[in-house]
Structure formats: C-alpha cells, structure tokens
C-alpha cells in the first residue's frame, strides 16, 4: 500500500522519474508476488512445495499479481488459486477484490504517466544536487517480502509510510503465513476473543508494530492437520462443556437442597435450614458444623456454573435439548443461590437475631462452637435415624 502511494505521488511530482520507478517496481512487485505465491502454496499444503507445472502457474500468477487482476478474480470466486480447498471468508474475499482494484488503478495511473513522460510531456531538468548519469534510486521503504504481501492496498486514512492503526490495514501488511493464521483464528475463536486478538502488536499510541504483530500471528499459524483438529472440536466440545456445567449444578443443588439426605428432619433438610438452625441454637446440625462455609462455597460454585452456561448457551443454540436443560439448570441454580443466601444472611446476623446464644463478635456463648469438630457421640439432629441410610 505504502509503495503504491509513493509511486503515485512521485509520478505526479516528478514525471521524469516515472518510467524508472514504475519499471523497477513492476519487476520488484513481480518478484515479491512470486515469492508470496510460493509461500502461500506451502501454507495451504502443510509446508509442501509445488510440482513443476504448479510452480510454473505460481510464477505466472505472481507476475500477474502486479496487475491486481488475480486478486479480483480470487475474491469473486471466493478462493485462492492452489488453495487446496480452503475458502476465503466473506471479509477476505471482499478485501481481495478491493486490493486488486487498487493495484489495477495504480498500475493504470502509473502506466499512463510513464507513457506520457518524454515524447508528449513536459521538459524535465535533472534534480539539483543529483549527479548526472546516476540512476534514480529505488524507493528505500520497500518492505521485505515476508512482511509485504502482494495484495497490499492503500489503507484509508493511513498516510504512506506511517504505521497502521486499523486491523484491516495491518492485515494486508502481514506475511501470507500470518494472514492465514488470522483467517484460521477467525474461524476458531469467539467474536469477543477475536476482537481482543486483533489488538496483538498494537502500541500504546494505537498504531501497530507490524513486525511484532507479524511475528505473533505467524506463531499462531497451524498446519492443516492441527487446524482441522481444532475446528472439529467446535460445537461438540462446547456441548460437552455445557453438559459438565449442568452436572455441576445438579450435584451442587442435590448436595444442598435435601436431595442427598431425604430423611433429614431439620427444616426442609436443606443446607440453609441447617444454617438457620445452627444460628438459632448455637449447635452444629447433624453433629458436624461448617454449614456456613458450605453454603458460601456452594453459592460461588453455582454462580460460576451459571455464568459459564450463560456464555455457552448461544454457542450450543443449535441443540434445543441442551438449551432447554441449560434454561432449567440456571433456574434451579438461581433458586438455590437465593435460598442459600437467605440462610447465610441469618447466620451472618446471628449475634443480632439471637443475642442469648451469640456474643456480639459472633462467638457462641456455649462451650461448643457450630463450626468446631465435635465428639463422635454428639446427637444427630439432622437425621431421626441417627444417620441411617434410606
């Protein structure tokens, strides 16, 4: 992009230099194009290089890339040449058409300047201070091939030579391998994570460090086998994760709502009922204290599972069974959280609610604390059968 901008600008300002610059850059552009085509081919074929005829085709394409026409065609078709079945996503396809058009227009403008340069053009004197006979220097800011794919386009609002600020502008300055990595991650990651990943290589001032970003994205590139493996995990993995959270909610609720101890007699057999009883009497329910800690940890476990399911719900929306299970589980967990919190509120206010049992600092006035280990023969208030199984 920068190169194209500089070419146009120089051709406009110094028409005499146009033939040399345009000619030199056409050759350089063709070389870069060929190089990029071969690198892209390797990326699409697990690092394997092309055969003879394919190589010949890549050379032709690389040269033709100077015109931008292959990019336009590939964008319209929705796939790169020799891409081994990989499709371009709509963003990439549009970008390919756009960058191809920019290349084509730049070539036409530059070509026209070149043709008009001497015969019908204006007389041009040598530049002051420029030794006669010395050919114009090729632009010094031509990027190395690995950082400058041939599909570069003029970034909107990005002056030539300045670091890119928009991810789209950065992306066209990445190597083919890094660009492929971007496309892979776009398919694998949630929109939220992808949005964050687009900040990779961004400086504090909002511009991108192209080299740093390129290095980071190239590190993310996956060979086809690994990419396909990660892609295949997709929805099945998310569904399995959702089922894990459902199981967590079920077991946590069963553990606290009396399901596991159907014969319990304190209140309705729930953890919060035991907690209220401990606050009221100062005695551990069931012979073992710690219901306050259990209630607090269960609440946090349920909250974590609910948050996780809320995030996963949209990702598994294609499975109505799982979606219904998630809705029901979240409802059950929310009810449980509310009930447990009610018990904790009583416990936390025990000194105020039951001042005859508790000191103001929350210590029990009796000799046995509800959270302390208890002797083995403590009466089992929680179970009329003294803990016998149902």
């Amino acid at each position, binding site marked *: 992009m920068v190169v194209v901008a500089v070419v146009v600008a120089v051709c406009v300002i110094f028409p005499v230099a146009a033939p040399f610059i345009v000619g030199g850059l056409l050759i350089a552009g063709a070389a870069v194009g060929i190089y990029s085509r071969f690198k892209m081919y390797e990326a699409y074929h697990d690092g394997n290089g092309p055969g003879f005829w394919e190589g010949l085709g890549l050379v032709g394409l690389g040269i033709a890339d100077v015109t931008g026409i292959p990019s336009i065609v590939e964008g319209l078709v929705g796939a790169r040449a020799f891409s081994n079945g990989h499709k371009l996503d709509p963003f990439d396809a549009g970008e390919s058409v756009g960058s191809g058009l920019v290349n084509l227009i730049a070539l036409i403008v530059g070509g026209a300047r070149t043709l008009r340069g001497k015969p019908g053009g204006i007389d041009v004197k040598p530049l002051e201070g420029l030794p006669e006979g010395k050919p114009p220097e090729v632009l010094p800011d031509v990027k190395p091939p690995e950082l400058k794919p041939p599909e570069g386009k003029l970034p909107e609002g990005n002056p030539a030579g300045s670091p890119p600020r928009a991810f789209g502008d950065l992306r066209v300055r990445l190597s083919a391998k890094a660009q492929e990595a971007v496309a892979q991650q776009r398919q694998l990651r949630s929109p*939220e*994570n992808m949005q964050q990943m687009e900040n990779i290589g961004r400086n504090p001032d909002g511009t991108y460090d192209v080299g740093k970003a390129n290095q980071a994205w190239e590190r*993310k590139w996956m060979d086809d086998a690994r990419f396909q493996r990660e892609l295949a995990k997709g929805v099945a*993995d998310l569904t399995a994760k959702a089922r*894990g959270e459902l199981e967590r909610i079920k077991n946590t609720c069963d553990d606290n709502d009396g399901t596991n101890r159907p014969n319990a007699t304190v209140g309705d057999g729930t953890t919060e009922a035991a907690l209220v009883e401990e606050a009221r009497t100062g005695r551990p329910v069931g*012979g*073992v204290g710690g219901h306050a800690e259990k209630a607090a940890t269960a609440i946090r*476990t349920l909250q974590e599972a609910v948050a*996780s399911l809320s995030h996963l719900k949209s990702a598994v929306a294609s499975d109505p069974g799982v979606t219904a299970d998630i809705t029901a589980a979240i409802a059950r967990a929310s009810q449980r959280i509310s009930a447990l919190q009610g018990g904790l509120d009583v416990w936390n206010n025990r000194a105020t609610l039951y001042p005859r049992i508790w000191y103001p600092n929350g210590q029990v006035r009796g000799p046995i604390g509800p959270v302390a280990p208890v002797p083995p023969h403590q009466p089992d208030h929680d179970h009329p059968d003294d803990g016998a199984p149902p």
Partner: protein
Amino acid sequence: MTDLWRDPDDITDDLASGDTERIRIGLAGLREFTKGGDEFELPVIDATLLLPFGASPPEAVVIDLARLMARYRSFVPQPSRADVIRQLVELAVRYAVPQVIYEASIEIQGEADPAAAARSAVDYLGGRGLASPREVEAGGKLVAHLLEAKPLVRRATAEGLAAWPLTDTRRAVVTAVLPLIDPDQRAQVTSEGSRRS
C-alpha cells in the same frame, strides 16, 4: 472481556515461566479467554504449577487452577479423569482452600462412577497421608463433603476411610466426620482392627 485478557501464546509462556506473577496472570487470562468456551492446545499442567508460590498461594490462584484442571479439554497430552480427580484432591488438601475442597467433592460426584471416584480419592488421601494440621483439616472437610453426598458415594467414602492406616491422622478425621457416617459402617471405621499395612 476485561483487561485480564491474555493472548493464548502469552498464556502458554506464562504458565511455563515458573514466575509466580506470570502464573497468576496466565491463569486469570486463561479463565477470561475460556469464558465463551474457546480453548487452545495447552501443555498439560497439574498441582505442581503452584510450587513456586510456596505453602500458601493466593486463594484465587488455587481456585483458578482447580477449575482449569477440572474443565479444560485441550491439554496436550489429555490427562485421564482419574488423574484430574487425583490432582484436584491434591490441590484441595495441599492448600486447604474451602472453595477448592468443595468443588473437588462436586467433581467427584459428577464422575461416571462417583462411588468409585470417591473411593479412589479417599484411598489417595490415605496413601498420601496428611502432613500438617492444615492438611488434616482440609482432608477432613473433603471427606465430610463426600459423606454428605448420595448413599453410594457416602458408603464408598466410609469404606475408603476404614482402609486408612491407623494413625493419629485417621483418628482425627474419623472423629470429625463420624456423625455423617451411616451407623452400620461406624464400627468399621472406628475399629482398631482395620489397620492397613
């Protein structure tokens, strides 16, 4: 998304760094990254990750690691569920974080065969031993949670406890949880004759 977000490659490096601050940041970043279900291939980690923190890592770090080990499905190589449960039990008793102890018991109850998983966990504790009062208390809490689970888990837990070597540790734990044990198993657990060599 928050400023806890970390790039996957940075997270991988953080967790391999051996540096406590980077491990803390890496675990928090991984929690943030996986919120929506995203995962990436990550070298397998276990309770030893927290060794650089010494005896008492921040509770949030222990909780992050425990939840990661319990839920993450893209470790390379993928550990077996038995390994995962064992690591959770290890984390629970080593650092005695109540949240981790409770969630270890919930993970055990969520296994395909929860009774076998409970027995395996209690056996692991018996073989491992509990080295300090803090570990004894943590081990006792875990056993207590399992004794409040469904009958099959409860009974398997008591059977496992009965197989512990007859030490002061066993006596302390049994004393703390005895009311939760089904009456017909109490004699088995308190019996001096159940010493294991």
